[in-house]
């Protein structure tokens, strides 16, 4: 009987052979006549598309619709005199984002690795070189600096006080109310009617509120559906199946049109609140199923082991089952959040001036009639940026929590 030494393991691994670009192309793109033909055809199609798009972007397209209405895209009909409040909100978010990054990365050897520096440099270059939105876009440079400074500070603080994570979470929590205050006014600030909330600010606000509401609700529904109490289980199942059987647009119309008819005259919840609730209720049903999938993936043995250690049901759930289940469900949950973010576009159908809705209004301005390609392309880029950032974040969290075998 021979024992296998670790050495023989490593030598058994195939060596990674670095291929030159020519050899790489030959291996992956031109291995035989059929693959070569495919490569040529597909590259041809892409090149044709790219040339068409570029020539359109530089000759036919009239981009002035974007810079001239930039404030509208970002904040809708929000009074322009109060824009400093939106900038303050952005500064808070940037500062907190940097701080969290620093705290989370406190054990990483270099926070500003080469790829991060390249990324930051690209962002700055884009801000400086992308002409349409100057001069207000130049204010974004200090924001990038703020992220970097806050990250460095957060790293130092995270090393000194290991318990700072809790406070950062608390700060995020409080920032939500700061956002509400800065956008909506009151308490010493000029109030802004929710009717004037719009553009990207409204999109982000509804998405964040919807996500924050649907997560606990979905969690409870998932637990309810697996509960041993029959009534709780039936009610949860009924809710999930009912909501999943109804399109979101129908729920939104219910919220905007039907709810006021049921309520007594005079008590009429805000339209944005109604939309957020509809979004959250809808997403919670889907989220519950994602979480339930995660719960089912946790082996029963974990539960039994916890019981045998003397943990009661809440602690078993909170300390043993849920952390594992949620970790498994992260990709599905983030997928649900991304689709909730995109579902906010449906609010334009029920008359809220979110990003897509305000885009429609701008397109109706006689000065920009027919500029839909430019506007919709711009909106697509914004939506892509946020969705990609979310999926990037989810991948980072997965890596961080990857304690699997």
């Amino acid at each position: 009987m021979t024992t296998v030494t670790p050495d023989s393991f490593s030598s058994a691994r195939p060596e990674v052979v670095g291929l030159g670009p020519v050899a790489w192309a030959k291996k992956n793109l031109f291995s035989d006549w059929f693959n070569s033909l495919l490569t040529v055809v597909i590259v041809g199609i892409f090149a044709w598309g790219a040339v068409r798009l570029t020539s359109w972007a530089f000759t036919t397209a009239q981009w002035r619709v974007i810079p001239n209405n930039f404030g509208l895209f970002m904040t809708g009909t929000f009074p322009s005199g109060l824009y400093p409040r939106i900038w303050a909100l952005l500064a808070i978010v940037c500062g907190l984002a940097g701080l969290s990054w620093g705290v989370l990365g406190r054990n990483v050897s270099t926070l500003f690795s080469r790829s991060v520096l390249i990324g930051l440099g690209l962002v700055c270059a884009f801000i400086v070189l992308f002409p349409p939105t100057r001069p207000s876009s130049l204010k974004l440079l200090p924001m990038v600096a703020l992220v970097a400074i806050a990250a460095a500070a957060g790293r130092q603080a995270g090393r000194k006080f290991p318990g700072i994570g809790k406070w950062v979470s608390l700060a995020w929590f409080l920032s939500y109310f700061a956002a509400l205050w800065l956008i909506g006014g009151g308490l010493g600030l000029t109030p802004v009617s929710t009717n004037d909330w719009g553009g990207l600010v409204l999109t982000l606000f509804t998405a964040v509120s919807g996500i924050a509401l649907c997560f606990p609700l979905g969690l409870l529904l998932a637990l309810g559906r697996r509960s041993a109490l029959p009534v709780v289980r039936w009610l949860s199942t009924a809710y999930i199946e009912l909501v999943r059987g109804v399109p979101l647009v129908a729920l939104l119309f219910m919220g905007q049109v039907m709810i006021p008819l049921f309520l007594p005259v005079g008590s009429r919840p805000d339209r944005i609140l109604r939309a957020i609730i509809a979004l959250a209720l809808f997403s919670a049903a889907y989220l519950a199923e994602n979480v339930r999938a995660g719960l089912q993936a946790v082996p029963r043995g974990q539960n039994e082991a916890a019981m045998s250690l003397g943990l009661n049901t809440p602690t078993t759930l909170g300390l043993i089952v849920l952390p594992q289940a949620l970790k498994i469900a992260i990709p599905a949950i983030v997928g649900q959040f991304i689709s909730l973010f995109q579902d906010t576009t449906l609010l334009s159908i029920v008359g809220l001036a979110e990003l897509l809705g305000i885009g429609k209004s701008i397109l109706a301005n006689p000065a920009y009639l027919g500029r839909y390609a430019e506007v919709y392309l711009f909106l697509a880029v914004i939506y892509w940026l946020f969705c990609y950032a979310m999926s990037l974040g989810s991948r980072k969290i997965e890596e961080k929590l990857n304690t699997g075998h």
Partner: protein
Amino acid sequence: MRKWGLLAAALGLTLAACGGETTTTAGGDGGGTATAGGRLDVVKNRGQLICGVDGGIPGFSFVDESGTYSGLDVDVCKAVAAAVLGDAEAVEYRRLDSTERFTALSGGEVDMLSRNTTWTISRDTSVGLEFAPTTFFDGQGMLVRADSGIETLEDFAGQAVCVETGTTTELNLTDQMRQLGVEFEPVVFQDADAAYAAYDEGRCEGMTSDKSQLVARRSTLPNPDEHVLLEVTMSKEPLGPVTTNNDSGWFDVVKWVTYGLIQAEEFGITSENVGTFEGTENPDIARFLGQEGTLGTDMGLPNDFMVQVITQVGNYGEVYERNVGADSEFALERGQNALWSEGGLMYSPPFR
């Protein structure tokens, strides 16, 4: 342990966010205060008019670069606000989809509707609406290329027509063509932008929609002069402001402010010369502007309500020219929308 704390914080965040949300926004909507005392009193007490608009119709309601609503429909809202509250800017615009506009109005979410709504008998009776005078007479038209040789609808035999699906436009088109016995090929689109793009690419010989929209869109085509409107009107589309049944006091206000815009043009009173009519000899104008009589106060408005309307918004002619007429990108002819004395349909009953 740290993760557990984070989880708890996250849960707390979301739950409290829910709580915070309800408290902060409950006072945001002032739209639904009781209708018992009449909508006019509600508007006066609120100090703001809530006006339902579309928010996305070129020339009628859109958001301009400074973030303010403008357009012909919007100016009607402004006129009512100027008459009732003395301030044309005291309006909160509510964007309404075509499916929810009537529910929003009858549910009391908006005070009035100024949203490209066609006056029809079923809407007036079974839906329970009151239609104020028409502010824009539209009709369905047909846009063709000037060199296509098409001059009447009969010439469309075997040709393709681009049309938006699910609208009365599509219905009118097929009805008209069936009546004429013309076999044509409808090319339907979900979206107006897509339909005009297809027409521009030559996928159809004709493009049909409301004439005002066709003219507006023609100006965005690469060579506007190569396209002409056929001399045919396939439907009547009288568009105007709307209120609900069972509140004649409020309906009278909207109705007579709208008539006032037309009457002001007939009198030749504009936003620029309204000051010169102070102490006028003409008794009709003196009554109209509230220098004599009690036309305004009888309605529950200040007696000089038309002075406010004309100073802040202008007369109908000014509103028209500014938004869709000669001073706009569209340069629409007055046509049916001219005063009755100039061959149009705009006619106001006398102010006396």
